[in-house]
């Protein structure tokens, strides 16, 4: 079986229902919890009446600020902590945003818990609040002043304002995207269980290490007394990248009751219980010569923040690098509003940033009268315009060329409104590029070679459907020349290894790096050559041991050893994309065909071609699925997904899967995926860059640009809905 034919590890378990997700764990004697959430936009709880709730048969416990939970906040993930926000509910009477938990009801049954939760009554002293960028009462702060860290400073290269003013061709436009929610199929929740003095948590998470470290901090435990188990995650997309505030109270309830407690948040609650993609507004100014050669770019961003935390923004990290722009000025600001802290949702900054920049580039191509692919090729960069360092590898031009060929771009008629389908439906073709940093994180991996010839990999990493276990099994099987059936991989389990957060698309190649190192050492211990097939059973038997175990800890190029300590503590420690000798990014080009229905001007995506430069493709089956999934995400992001905000009430109103409109299969046309596949051996010895995030970057602007081509109307706000084209 070749690598390309290897099926997805765990596929059978998932389609037969055998895979056990966090909340599937149902230990004997488990009790059920249900949250109660604030129904005002901001204020103070003046009275909390739990009498009726406590009277419901089967109710065991109602936790709230009236009680002393004996916990402390876990700290904000981006400020030395573990949680998606610094605010830990249930500790005082403050309500910072609508939907904030104010009580947790625990009962013998889920039905009793839900009934009782509905009977908790709160009286509030309400305060004015603001939930929109332009609302009165917001507060705007400059990122480089509020977060004075070198890597968060505004990107400034050359004299962008002067060069812009002198440019014969100029584009100046404002774009807006968000808010959006990740809405993974697997709801937020898990099971907390005490086994003696040890807290065991089953919960779908992209960061079991953060849950371990954070719970230890919150409960005053030695981290060794916390075990977090998450073999599968039913979709994370950033929503499950840190500790969420339900878990410590759940552990408190389990300890008080002396029995395990399970909590699965209702879908509506997940819109306020975890992070979301904040609304962001982008003013982009591009200056170019008459041929469309870029001379200057200015990218100014306002991003929604909560009152209590600032999500460090990096929109300009890719907009300053996508093209060879010698004069660039970025400015990133935060607008404080009364919401939970927004956070990371797939390509958190890069998707909106690319929507803004790549729409503006399309506007420039139109103004210059140049083909949008040609214009992008003419502006390709050979080295990083920000640092002057080489790219570890950069094949964006190849992505554009191959995509154009696969799509049949040469047959495009340049003028807007000039193409029609056979039935007269207006057709538009659009293109956009994307980039995403190739970051690397510290990972510990262990390889256990058995006398039976089987190999077990235990590593820091998480399987959230992206295919990490498939990539690991495939890598080990190929390296040792053994069947994939002889290899098993365990990830998402603090009992076997410390875990860094898996996000930012750094998971697969970072973990592969550690596995690669552990395999090199295994070969040495087995006394076999550094390359070539290995008879594992014979080699292990020759050592006289029943099992040969090797372990490796790896980190990014030039990353200091303290990063490993942070990883072991469950804190974030990504390295890159600015490495000592190079900068590293993955690249992608998307080509989109839309049809705009003539009667009701509804945008239908009929065809997409996506070509990615992610270095060597680590796992073809799952890589292909990653890109397809990202294109579907992009269709939703461009055309339908929007978290609706009513400024009179706060919170998010369309908090269910009927009203938060993600695409259905019938909304998705043909998707063709291809990879450049050139190994990036500068970045790491496997030649693998990142894929899961870059695949989404540029889908939305490619759709928006296709809409412009079909209709002559330029969408500058996502999602693009019927009313925008009517």
């Amino acid at each position, binding site marked *: 079986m070749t690598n390309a034919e290897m099926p997805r590890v765990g596929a059978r378990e998932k389609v037969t229902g055998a895979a056990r997700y966090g909340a599937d764990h149902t230990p004997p004697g488990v009790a059920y919890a249900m949250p109660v959430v604030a129904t005002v936009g901001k204020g103070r709880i003046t009275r909390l009446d739990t009498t009726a709730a406590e009277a419901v048969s089967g109710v065991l416990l109602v936790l709230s600020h009236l009680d002393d939970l004996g916990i402390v906040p876990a700290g904000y993930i981006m400020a030395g902590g573990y949680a998606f926000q610094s605010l830990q509910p249930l500790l005082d009477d403050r309500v910072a945003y609508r939907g904030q938990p104010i009580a947790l009801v625990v009962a013998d049954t889920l039905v009793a818990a839900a009934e009782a939760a509905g009977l908790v009554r709160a009286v509030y002293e309400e305060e004015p609040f603001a939930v929109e960028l332009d609302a009165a009462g917001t507060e705007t702060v400059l990122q480089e002043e509020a977060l004075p860290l070198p890597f968060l400073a505004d990107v400034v290269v050359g004299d962008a304002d002067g060069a812009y003013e002198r440019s014969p061709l100029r584009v100046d436009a404002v774009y807006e995207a968000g808010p959006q929610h990740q809405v993974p199929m697997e709801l937020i929740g898990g099971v907390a269980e005490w086994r003696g003095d040890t807290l065991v948590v089953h919960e779908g998470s992209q960061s079991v290490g953060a849950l371990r470290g954070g719970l230890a901090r919150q409960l005053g435990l030695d981290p060794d007394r916390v075990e977090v188990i998450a073999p599968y995650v039913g979709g994370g997309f950033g929503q499950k990248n840190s500790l969420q505030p339900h878990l410590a109270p759940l552990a408190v309830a389990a300890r008080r009751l002396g029995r395990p407690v399970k909590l699965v948040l209702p879908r509506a609650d997940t819109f306020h219980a975890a992070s979301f993609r904040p609304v962001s507004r982008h003013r982009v100014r591009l200056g170019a010569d008459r041929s469309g050669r870029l001379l200057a770019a200015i990218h100014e961003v306002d991003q929604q923040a909560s009152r209590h935390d600032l999500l460090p923004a990096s929109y300009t990290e890719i907009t300053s690098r996508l093209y060879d722009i010698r004069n660039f000025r970025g400015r990133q600001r935060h607008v404080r509003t009364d919401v939970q802290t927004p956070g990371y949702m797939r390509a958190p900054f890069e998707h909106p940033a690319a929507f803004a920049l790549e729409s503006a580039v399309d506007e420039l191509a139109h103004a210059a009268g140049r083909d949008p692919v040609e214009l992008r090729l003419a502006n390709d960069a050979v080295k990083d315009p920000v640092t002057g360092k080489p790219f570890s590898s950069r094949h964006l031009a190849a992505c554009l060329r191959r995509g154009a060929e696969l799509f049949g771009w040469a047959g495009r008629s340049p003028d807007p409104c000039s193409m029609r389908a056979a039935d007269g439906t207006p057709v538009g073709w659009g293109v956009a590029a994307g980039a995403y940093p190739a970051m690397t994180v510290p990972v510990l991996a262990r390889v256990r070679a058995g006398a039976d010839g089987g190999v077990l990999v235990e590593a820091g990493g998480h399987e959230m459907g992206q295919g990490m276990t498939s990539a690991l099994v495939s890598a080990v099987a190929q390296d040792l020349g053994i069947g994939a059936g002889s290899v098993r991989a365990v990830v998402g389990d603090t009992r076997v290894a410390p875990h860094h957060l898996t996000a930012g698309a750094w998971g697969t190649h970072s973990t592969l790096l550690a596995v690669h190192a552990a395999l090199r050492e295994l070969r040495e211990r087995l006394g076999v050559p550094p390359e070539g097939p290995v008879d594992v059973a014979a080699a292990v038997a020759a050592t006289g041991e029943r099992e040969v175990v090797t372990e490796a800890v790896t980190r990014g190029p030039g990353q200091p050893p303290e990063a490993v300590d942070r990883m072991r503590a469950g804190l974030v420690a990504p390295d890159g994309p600015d490495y000592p000798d190079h900068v590293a990014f993955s690249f992608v080009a998307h080509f989109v065909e839309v049809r705009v229905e003539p*009667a009701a001007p509804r945008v239908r995506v009929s065809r997409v071609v996506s070509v990615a430069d992610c270095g060597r493709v680590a796992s073809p089956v799952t890589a292909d699925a990653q890109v397809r999934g990202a294109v579907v995400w992009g269709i939703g992001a461009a055309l*339908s997904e929007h978290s609706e905000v009513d400024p*009179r*009430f706060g919170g998010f109103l*369309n908090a269910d899967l*009927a*009203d938060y409109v993600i695409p259905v299969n019938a909304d998705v046309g043909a998707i063709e995926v291809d990879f450049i596949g050139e190994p990036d051996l500068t970045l790491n010895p496997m030649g693998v860059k990142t894929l899961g995030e870059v695949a989404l970057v540029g889908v939305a602007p490619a759709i928006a640009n296709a809409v412009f081509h079909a209709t002559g109307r330029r969408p500058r706000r996502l999602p693009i809905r*019927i009313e925008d084209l*009517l």
Partner: protein
Amino acid sequence: MRPFAYAVPATLDEALRALSEAGPGAKLLAGGTTLYDLMKLDVETPPAVVDIRALPELAGVDTAGASELSFGAGAPMADVAADPVLRRDYPALAESLAKAASQQLRNVATVGGNLLQRTRCPYFRGGLAFPCNKRRPGSGCAAIGGLDRGHALLGGSDACIATYPGDWAVALIAFDAILDVAGPRGSRTLPLAGLHVEPGDRPDREHTLAWDEIVTRIRVPVTAAGRGSTYHKVRDRESYAFALASAAVAVTLGAGGTVEECRVAVGGVATRPWRCHEAERELVGAVLDRGSARRAGETAFAEARPGRQNAFRIELGVRTVAEALRIAGERAER
């Protein structure tokens, strides 16, 4: 969800008795696709639920009759949507079902229960913190002046602008459907047009059935206009979505494309299934072309009252009616 008494009667008579004994506030359970959802949201808190899924009197579909089509109220939406005669002779009826909800929901939801699906207004569903005259009479209407992109343009009042969300009833009202209703005081028939009521100053009242009555059957008079019909539905995604605007249209055409018989109803835009008699009257005798179709749409929406975000759905509704007339005209026998 609150505890409730649960009864599973074996016959219609037993069901009527069980309902009477349970008293006002009891709810009938058919497919459960809406009732369970609303019970989980605490919108519905019935003390008793009478399960009528298996009642033999509610079963059966007959689309072969000489004078009328007959649908047992308990027939699953998916079964009726797939009926070959209905698909051929009354595509508007079949399409209105096929374009509703998702296949999974249609497999269990019934054609009777679907008639009284409650509104999807997010404030109504969102909890008691939102003013909602439908849920708490007198508390106000959060949708008026709020996020009203999906709210009603027709039939609203100062107390409520919640959209009637169904598709099937919109198609049925275009075909003059009649309901058979059983109750402790005997059986009666009720035109579908008399079932739903506009919110007025009592948005909590949505229909004219008594609390102890059960809809047993839906009947549709046979008409040649069925062949030239369509249910055209425009929505934010291709399936599993409620209509931004929809139109059920049926026509028969005479010589030169002149409209002889005409039925027009619109959905997703009104507080109840909305028949457009005025548009029909204008079309009869006219040649069906782009201009007359467009004018019919404009007439259908002449009384539309937009709010903050939903004004675009007037133009969308006009175009939807026109497009439905175009499709129906192509299907009509000449």
